[in-house]
């Protein structure tokens, strides 16, 4: 990854040499570590499934999930295997050519029939041979799939999971084309309301219990269980309970089939139309890594993206559903200057530059938002430094939950601190700015992405400002009073970086086009900085980022570069 990681790990003691075990996968010799981290990160004996994955042979599985405790109930991962034969003297029996003889595991009462073992829960042993593509393994997979499909409704045309369904995928890859089941399928409840965000289709469930284990062990809310017997087994919330914790939608992601569906996404778009963009959730300072699914410039859903340093495979429901504002009807669409009546970007930016150039030192103040990207905050700080302006941003506190949700609901508070927009304590300059406005010392106010009338500068004070330059996404009291209005972009509509609560610099990429005339803030800020200070920080976004990475000490010491930050971000020392 980035040089930042290298720099950070330098101080740590060298990792002890990994103890390995030699096994054969499909006849290929591989050395795999003796232990691997389990779902909680504790070392556990390596399993056959992991050994196969290291050897590049994918073993199909439903109930196994790297971030959940092992259950071993679906049997999809059955594989045939063999172990070195032991003589009565506890020594390996050798064949004529001197290699150890392998005893294929067979049924005890039927020595001709191979006996598989579930790869997800069977630890490897030295000399073991695993046969993930032997005819016996194939037969076992076929049989498991056939049994899973006995009562399966085959709802694919109306099932939200179709296109990303493990049952579909494995059926195509490992199943058989014909069904031998002639009886009537067992019908189970459909459209079960499990909680405010989840709808369950019991017929589609393969009873892997991933959802149960997630709620019990990861979300710490033991809300789900299996009720009824035999073919009538179904998932249900405990009587009188709602499945309504703030992490329920993760079960929709991990459900390998279309049993658990998101009420928000249900029947809204088929997944094969969706374009996925790597991004970062902006609802709190944790900065969970996400994928934004969009089609034809509208966002359909957020899904967590695995990053073990931040959010593992999860994200909270409130962050996941916080995307609707991007497509809101009342978005600010037009750039305007109410001074000259100009309605074009070039004219408005030039007019602002003109105003700022003639403003006396110290007569300008900047209130930025910690929801903005680091690049934009950097540019605003450049501008402020040139004008001798006071700067600050707005604090947004909520309650942390000890798991993912951070009490700081701004995604980039650390970015604002790092670029010098605010101090460690956010918002302490705002009373000073308000005072300055009232005393007439400050007569130009630049506001980005915040409604300052709700954050310490009331409308009366605001009306004293002679030049109010505002950039925002949605209309509010401040934008209504603006003399210069610059419509900005949602983070899904531009590129940028956030620095999360732990000081990890993370990139987000552009998923959809900006609405109307809106432009990414970094773009017009770059022009404005150029026109006011004469300093050109371009051209383009990458040049800007790399310039910032040299200028800001925290970034410079980590040696980051846009191209090297990578999808998992880079840790900084703040």
């Amino acid at each position, binding site marked *: 990854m980035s040089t930042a990681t290298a720099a950070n790990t330098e101080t740590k003691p060298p990792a002890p040499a990994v103890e390995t075990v030699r096994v054969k996968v499909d006849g290929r010799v591989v050395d795999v570590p003796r232990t691997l981290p389990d779902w909680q990160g504790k070392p556990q004996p390596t399993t056959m499934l992991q050994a196969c994955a290291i050897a590049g042979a994918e073993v199909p599985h439903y109930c196994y999930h790297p971030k959940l405790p092992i259950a071993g109930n679906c049997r999809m991962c059955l594989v045939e295997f063999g172990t070195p034969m032991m003589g009565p003297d506890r020594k390996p029996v050798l064949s004529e050519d001197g290699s150890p003889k392998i005893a294929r595991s067979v049924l005890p009462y039927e020595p001709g029939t191979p006996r598989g073992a579930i790869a997800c829960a069977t630890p490897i042993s030295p000399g073991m041979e695993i046969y993930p593509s032997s005819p016996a393994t194939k037969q076992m997979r076929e049989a498991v799939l056939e049994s899973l499909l006995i009562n399966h409704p085959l*709802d*694919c*045309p*109306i099932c939200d999971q*179709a296109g990303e369904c493990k049952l579909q995928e494995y059926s195509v890859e490992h199943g058989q084309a014909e069904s031998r089941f002639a009886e*009537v*399928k*067992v*019908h189970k409840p*459909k*459209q079960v309301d499990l909680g405010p965000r989840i*709808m369950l289709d019991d017929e589609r469930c393969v009873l892997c219990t991933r959802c149960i284990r997630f709620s019990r062990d990861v979300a710490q809310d033991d809300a789900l269980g299996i009720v*009824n*017997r035999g073919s*009538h087994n179904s998932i249900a919330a405990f009587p009188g309970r709602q499945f309504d914790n703030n992490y329920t939608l993760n079960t929709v992601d991990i459900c390998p089939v279309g049993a658990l569906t998101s*009420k*928000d*996404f*249900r*029947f*809204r*778009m*088929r997944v*094969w*139309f969706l374009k996925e963009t790597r991004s970062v959730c902006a609802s709190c300072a944790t900065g969970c890594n996400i994928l934004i699914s969009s089609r034809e410039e509208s966002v359909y859903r957020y899904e967590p993206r695995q990053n073990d340093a931040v959010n593992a495979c999860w994200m909270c429901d409130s962050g996941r559903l916080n995307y609707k504002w991007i497509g809101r009807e009342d978005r600010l669409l037009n750039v305007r200057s109410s001074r000259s009546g100009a309605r074009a970007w070039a004219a408005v930016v030039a007019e602002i530059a003109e105003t700022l150039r003639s403003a006396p030192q110290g007569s300008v103040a900047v209130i930025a938002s910690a929801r903005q990207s680091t690049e934009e905050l950097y540019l605003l700080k450049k501008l402020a430094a040139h004008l001798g302006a006071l700067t600050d941003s707005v604090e947004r506190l909520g309650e942390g939950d000890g798991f993912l949700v951070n009490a700081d609901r701004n995604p980039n508070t650390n970015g604002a601190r790092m670029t010098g927009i605010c101090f460690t304590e956010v918002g302490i300059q705002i009373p000073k700015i308000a005072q300055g406005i009232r005393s007439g010392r400050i007569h130009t106010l630049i506001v980005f992405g915040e409604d300052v009338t709700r954050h310490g500068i009331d409308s009366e004070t605001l009306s004293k400002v002679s030049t109010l330059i505002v950039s925002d996404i949605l209309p509010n009291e401040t934008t209504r009073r603006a003399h210069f209005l610059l419509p900005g972009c949602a983070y899904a509509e531009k590129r940028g970086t956030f620095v999360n609560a732990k000081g990890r610099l993370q990139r987000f990429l552009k998923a959809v086009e900006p609405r109307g005339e809106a432009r990414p803030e970094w773009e017009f800020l770059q022009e404005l900085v150029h026109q006011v200070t004469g300093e050109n920080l371009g051209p383009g976004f990458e040049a800007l980022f790399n310039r910032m990475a040299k200028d800001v000490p925290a970034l410079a010491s980590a040696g980051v570069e846009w191209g090297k930050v990578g999808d998992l971000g880079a840790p900084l020392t703040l």
Partner: protein
Amino acid sequence: MIIKRTELSWLERMYFPTLWSGLRVTARHFYDTLFRGGRVTMEYPEQRWTVPEGYRGAPYLVKDAEDRTKCVSCQLCEFVCPPKAIKITPPGPAVDPTTGNVEKRPREFEINMLRCIFCGFCQEVCPEEAIFLMKDYSLTGLSRKEMIYDKEKLLSLGGVHNDQIRKWKKKEAEAASQEAFKPE
């Protein structure tokens, strides 16, 4: 596959035989129109060809015998359509209490007949047998907008398809017959 051209014989290379057979057709029509009163042209559009079975005309949506829209809004036809003539608006999460056990159907379904190339991929891909290429081959309209057929129009043009699938009715009956054994 590469098909090898057969060599032309010297007679064929002289063109006279082909020229002669063409002239024979012309002469036959000439004779027929003149003496037999037969007509070779048609008063289109008052008169129209009846197209043969299996002809691929415009695609329309059909209903089943219970007057239900067969289409379940799976959007496979939208995906497969080469000129992107189909645009479907899925129903969204709200449960419609009036539709019984019909879980999903399109909220809107549009085919742009100016784009449609009558290829039949939609009919072929449809898992519900809900869309068929019918016999209409000549579609006209006074504006581009008029040529975008919406769900109502497609359904009324498509009519009822009397097949034995009856997906929703059968599901309902099966589930109902198991009610008695439902462990509660």
